[in-house]
């Protein structure tokens, strides 16, 4: 890691902010149209049976993680949780594209203009960014 510590710090801040914006936006757009979101999840070939818990759990987690990212003490944990959640979204898309009986229309909300493949790439970039930000965090005692 030869990058200058300042650049690292800035990158961490940018990634955290990106995550905060993405998660808050995603959570709010889900909650505003909650019934519709639940119906869409019920139609998802992957989570139909768990539509209600997932519909509540995902936006709540997104908000909690966004708050963690805003608090300096919890930033590292926030990044790790955001990273994990993003990995899960990515796995979800990958499974839909490769294992599912049929591919649903779209996920709605923020990014409904994207195709599933674009979505996959978008998610992977976010996963990479969070990964980098975690690696760039200065070493300190937990």
């Amino acid at each position: 890691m030869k990058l200058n510590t300042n650049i690292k710090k800035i990158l961490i801040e940018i990634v955290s902010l990106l995550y905060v914006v993405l998660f808050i936006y995603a959570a709010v757009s889900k909650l505003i149209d909650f019934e519709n979101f639940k119906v869409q999840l019920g139609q998802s070939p992957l989570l139909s049976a768990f539509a209600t818990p997932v519909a509540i759990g995902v936006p709540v987690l997104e908000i909690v993680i966004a708050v963690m990212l805003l608090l300096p003490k919890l930033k590292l944990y926030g990044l790790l949780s955001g990273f994990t959640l993003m990995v899960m979204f990515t796995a979800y898309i990958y499974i839909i594209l490769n294992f599912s009986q049929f591919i649903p229309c779209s996920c709605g909300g923020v990014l409904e203009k994207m195709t599933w493949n674009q979505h996959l790439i978008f998610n992977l970039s976010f996963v990479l960014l969070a990964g980098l930000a975690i690696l760039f965090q200065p070493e300190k005692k937990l």
Partner: protein
Amino acid sequence: MKLTHKYIFLTACTLLGTGFVYLLFSLSENIVQYHNTFIRRFPQHLANPDRELDLKFNSYYFAGSDTSKIYLGNITAPLQITQIDTSFQHKQSNKIDLKEKNLPFQSPQIRVQTPYFYLFEGTIPYVFKGSTKDWNGYLQWTSGTYFSQVEPIDSCRLAVRFLAPKTSENLLGTLNLETKTEGFGKKLLLKQLDGVFDTDGSLHYNNTLQRLVYVHRYRNEFVVADPNLSLQYRGNTIDTVSHAHLKFSKINDGTVKTFSEPPLIVNKTSTTNGKYLFVHSALPGQYESMDMWKQASIIDVYDLTQKSYLASFYIYHDKGKSMRSFIVKGHYVYVLIGSKLIRYKLRNDIIKPYN
């Protein structure tokens, strides 16, 4: 946190996250297909309206189909049989000529299983059989137990729903027109209340699997049996009504039994083709848009060989009228709505075509 620890953490989170989603996926698949808690799936464009034909009358019913034609009977002209080719280009009507005319005819029905047709009335009872080449009907059956539904099995056997003598309970069975014998499947329909109303449903014969399929009207069950009337299995539709909800009253000094409150219908009409069972359900499931229920009939598709639920699709109302009945043949669903015959094309990557 040390750099190596971070790598370990990141790897662990990746594996755990992916594993968790995969676990949810496989659990959900298993629940939806085999232990469904009433969640429907509507794959995009599973069935799309594709052609329609105005028949001018709303009294037609499906009498049968083969690889090239749909056969329609007409309740107001009971001896008329109408043939329409599957692309709706040619329509032809014939009159069935019965070779025995001294029977108390009331409302005969027709079933076609090429190259034969059957004309019957279970409350007399009688069965005529003839060839679809000349449409001449010869009397084959004139006595025995009353019956109320008929589906041809092969050139001499018919699957029927009998009205059991004395009790008038529904009873599945067969008529053999060659040996002139009746067969009874006494344990196929299980009585829950009175055995008359609560066991109501619709009878089908599936040629591909060679199975009788009886779909209950008031409970979430269908019965699958072989042509010798031995039970193969009892399947469940995805709703949760396992017990018929019916209340009765006696009127006219106890001579007439009627419903004292509207019955809870579970499964309206149904049909079977290939390895699939198609059921027009009356009950909305979880996470469904109620607007769609005002605009369309919902058809659930089951795989009879996997005993699983596959998917659902919409048959849209036509000028406020809902679907009366339907059949599936090859790539298509044929629907009678009002005075129209409408064809829907099925997505063959999800529902494989069978003739």
